[in-house]
């Protein structure tokens, strides 16, 4: 027996006790998105000129991961209605009924507060402020406002996903720099072609949910042109760290090759036939864009580790 006031909720006038397991709450944290956040934050932290205490660095990354997960939980709480009608998201914990909406909301709020406070108290308050702003930006500005109101939703909302390397940098140095802003820009400018490639082949899903994604609002042809335009910008911006002398030629050449690949896939999307419903070029760009971001940051990380090792060895 259990008192009904503990962990339950009313639905259709009947009391319902949660059957959510710990795994369902982990799913609320969007682990796949979190892994990219952790990785980019880690690169920002390690690329910084100041080497933080390893334990403090681990705590910083942990706090950023939990903060990112918290914003994912808040997003799933608010978006449960549209997640339920999209094939890609219908199995998420809230629309599938595994986690009650109120549980997701409280879980997200508690983890948000906990992650920001931990980062502030144990690392520094600049990083904590950036993390708090990122959670607010993703949950309120993107999820509650932009997502359902403008086709520029993921362009502006992309800032939320772009902040982690800046937070990592701030965690290590207690300040910000042009280098960290460039890392921000790489993710920020990468977001539109990445998500619009997905929106092209998930167009019907988004239309059913009533989300004004770019292809649904301005059409596929215009979206394809915009994807290519953003690709033309993100590829050279990713080379900037080398041109500005922040990295070695290893990163520079890697970024040029990866950028050329990005432009190739974006070009294939641009010339994709209107009648092509399989949309293989869009699917290929979506897949490549994930690889691109991972590889760019991995190259940046490799470069930073090499430079640090070379510095220690006095080379």
């Amino acid at each position: 027996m259990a008192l009904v006031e503990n962990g339950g909720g009313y639905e259709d006038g009947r009391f319902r006790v949660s059957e959510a397991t710990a795994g369902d709450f982990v799913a609320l944290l969007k682990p796949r998105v979190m892994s990219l956040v952790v990785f980019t934050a880690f690169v920002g932290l390690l690329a910084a000129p100041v080497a933080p205490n390893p334990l403090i660095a681990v705590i910083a990354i942990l706090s950023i991961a939990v903060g990112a997960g918290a914003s994912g939980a808040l997003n799933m709480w608010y978006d449960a209605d549209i997640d339920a009608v999209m094939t890609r998201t219908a199995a998420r914990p809230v629309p599938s009924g595994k986690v009650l909406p109120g549980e997701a909301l409280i879980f997200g709020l508690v983890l948000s507060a906990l992650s920001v406070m931990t980062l502030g108290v144990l690392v520094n308050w600049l990083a904590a402020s950036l993390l708090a702003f990122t959670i607010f930006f993703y949950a309120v500005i993107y999820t509650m406002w932009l997502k359902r109101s403008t086709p520029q939703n993921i362009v502006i909302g992309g800032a939320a996903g772009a902040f982690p390397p800046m937070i990592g940098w701030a965690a290590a140095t207690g300040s910000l720099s042009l280098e960290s802003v460039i890392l921000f820009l790489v993710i920020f400018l990468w977001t539109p072609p990445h998500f619009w490639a997905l929106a092209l082949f998930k167009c019907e899903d988004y239309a059913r949910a009533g989300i004004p994604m770019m292809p649904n609002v301005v059409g596929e042809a215009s979206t394809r042109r915009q994807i290519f335009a953003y690709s033309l910008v993100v590829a050279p911006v990713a080379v900037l760290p080398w041109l500005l002398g922040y990295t070695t030629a290893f990163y520079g050449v890697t970024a040029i090759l990866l950028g050329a690949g990005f432009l190739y896939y974006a070009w294939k999307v641009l010339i994709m036939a209107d009648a092509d419903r399989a949309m293989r070029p869009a699917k290929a760009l979506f897949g490549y864009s994930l690889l691109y971001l991972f590889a760019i940051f991995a190259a940046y990380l490799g470069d930073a580790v090499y430079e640090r090792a070379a510095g220690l060895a006095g080379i």
Partner: protein
Amino acid sequence: MAEDDKDMVTLTEAQKKARRSRSLAIAVALGVLVIVFYVATIAKYGPAILNKAM
């Protein structure tokens, strides 16, 4: 409040199992939090944390 006045439900096996899973996760999370704050305090302040005027 008398026991009869309480609004009680009988949990199903699935609900009990889910509750155990959540309870365990909360215990682990709290344990990790304690360790994180303990270790971070030592790492951040070192022996200076003990250097307090009596």
